[in-house]
């Protein structure tokens, strides 16, 4: 009788350990970004603001991650002696090859998201959705879920999403929560065209 309870409890413990500790580790795959870019150095030493590189085009569309041309404006030659700088100049600037940046915040294909509406009309700050990316000294490794194909940032860092801080994820629920808090409209066709 007791043996049966122990067996049941053991199975439960194994599952709990696997589900809470091992599952998040095996769910995501990790890839490095092509260049170890420091937002902090660019903000502090070059005095760059978010919109200097992540800009809007003249027609109001959002340019997203800047193209190599933008970087080459300053980095025509190495600006420093770090390994990251050498890698960037040798592998991308000199051969004029675009770095294959991995976007943490790329939304699923069926979502239409307008930065212009949120930044220009809603006056949201970048940090409200992207966190303190601008203060980071390096780029986090890109983690993605090979089953869904989405970045870990979309789901949010904790797999259980318990205690997720505001704007800690970019799932539909997070968008709806924010719109609801702000008293904004959140119908299906707002994002799913």
């Amino acid at each position, binding site marked *: 009788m007791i043996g049966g309870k122990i067996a049941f409890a053991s199975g439960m413990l194994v599952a709990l350990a696997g589900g809470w500790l091992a599952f998040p580790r095996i769910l995501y795959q990790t890839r490095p970004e092509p260049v170890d870019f420091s937002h902090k150095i660019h903000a502090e030493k070059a005095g760059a603001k978010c919109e200097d590189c992540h800009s809007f085009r003249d027609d109001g569309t959002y340019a997203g991650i800047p193209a190599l041309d933008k970087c080459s404006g300053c980095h025509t030659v190495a600006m420093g002696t770090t390994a990251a700088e050498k890698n960037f100049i040798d592998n991308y600037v000199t051969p004029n090859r675009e770095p294959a940046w991995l976007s943490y915040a790329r939304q699923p294909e069926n979502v239409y998201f307008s930065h212009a509406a949120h930044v220009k009309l809603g006056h949201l700050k970048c940090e409200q959705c992207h966190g303190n990316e601008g203060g980071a000294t390096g780029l986090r490794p890109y983690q993605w879920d090979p089953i869904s194909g989405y970045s870990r940032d979309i789901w949010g860092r904790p*797999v259980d999403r318990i205690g997720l801080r505001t704007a800690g994820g970019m799932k539909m629920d997070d968008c709806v929560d924010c719109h609801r808090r702000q008293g904004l409209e959140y119908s299906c066709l707002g994002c799913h065209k």
Partner: protein
Amino acid sequence: MKTTRRNLLKFVGGTAAGALLTPAPWRLITDTALWSENWPGIPRPARGEIRARFTHCTLCPAGCAVRARCVNQQPVSLSGVKPHPISQGALCPWGIAGHHLPYHPARVRQGPVKEALAAVSRAVAERGAGERVAVLDLRPGRTVSWTYRRAMAAIDNGLYLAPPQPAYAVDLAAAQTVISFGAPLFDGWGTPGNVFSARPTFKLIQIEPVESRTAALADTWLPIRPGSETAIAAALAGEMTLEDAARTAGVDEASIGAVKEAAESGPAVVVAADPASPLMRLNAKFRALGHTVVARREAPVPEAWKKAAAATGVSATPDGAIRALLIDESLAGGYVPWREIAPKLAAHAVVVVFTSTGEGYARHASYALPAPVFPETAEDIGPAIDTTPAVFRIAAPLVAPVVPVVNPGEVLAQIAGLAPGDALRERADAIHKAGRGTLLSYPDGKTTPVKQVSADDFWKTLNQGGCWIGDAGKKEAPGKLEFAAAEPSPDELPLAVVLAEARREGLESPLMAKLDRESNLRMAPGRVALSPADARSNGIENGGRCVLETAGGRLSAVARIDPGIPPGVVEVAGGPQVADLCGAKSRARVVRA
């Protein structure tokens, strides 16, 4: 603790219970659902830089202004351009799906180009006395049409053939009453945006046997007997009594009287399904010439082009005279039935068609060569029937040709030995030199007098999103209007043929074809519709196979029994095959297959 079967099962049970208290199963359910959205074969939208580019639609002569949303230069959706004064921001369903056409599975993708051009050169060199080289231009009025005319003027015995081009334009906005003899006013007749913006200001009287979409939206529909349009026109002109006309047309006398009264009470215009129809003469009776029917205006052309060959109708060409015929079917236009062309060909004539579809002249030609489709090539569009000012608008290409295409204008220029050059640029320079009119830029909606723009900027704006609009000027009555002779119809066949709609020749987006035909919004090719009485008398069942017989031949079809079709009428979906079979006016017999 012993390892027993019972304990093992309890362990598994504990594992299952424990798993439910972790995020793993719940997350896997979500992930599996998302995984199913990304299976191979599911189309994925393009990613990249999003830009708006501007062009004009060439699918019909309306030439509506188009704003293309492009991702990485690839158009992914098309819409109208709001500030455009003629197309008024509207785009028809065909235009909206126009960017699908380069990838159409039924597109002509290859052809024996070298062989065809060698055969034409041989035919030109070896032709006998009196034998002609001809080009048939289905969409006259374009800049490339001038190239054809110049080429034919440069070749001995060259002949420029084109369907009749109306010498007038209709000013719908100036009309209080529009009397339409079967013209599909709301279904491809003119520029959709222009027609619908003028709609609140005019009363539409639609005169035709079958309740078409235009008839359904008209203020008054006169359901006349097929072939009785002339009687109604005669009554409106006062050349026949209302009583006689009513008896002939099968409508009541008061209805015809009301049409006459409406036409005489204010600015009116008469339009017909065929712009060259003699019914258009009624406009003179209602004093519409110079008011609602005005002279068609064309954009200036370089002085040197004016020695070009004049347009000739196919019917005016002597039989057996054409040794080499080149047909530009790259854009849908006025299809000339093959039975009118065939007698004009000499023995051993070479016929080359530049086309994107196998449905039209490719069925009869010696060689079918792949032509560019919208939006693959730079092309201009002449004024539509409801465009009163002169216009010049360029359909700038949005994608590179998807298949190796042959440009018919370049081929003709080469055969005729014309000096190489960009005809569109030459014409733009001529317009700029004339210094009249205004240039409308689509991205910013600004209108600038041509005099204030440099020639280079004028050209640049035309290619990047803009159009030239000539001065409104004083309205002028069109010159002498020429109309086609009424075609006699044989009486021995019991049913009058009515074309279901002006179906566009050429390619149609597969998406539109599916929406149109599978939902029965439009009649699919190879289908006919009959009244229940005619179907019963011929033993034809709904959905059953039948044969449509006309003086021109036979067509196997599927029958639809439609109580909306009056007895004595068979409605047939249009298209080149039906045009070859029926012509403009025809009678038919439908028998069970």
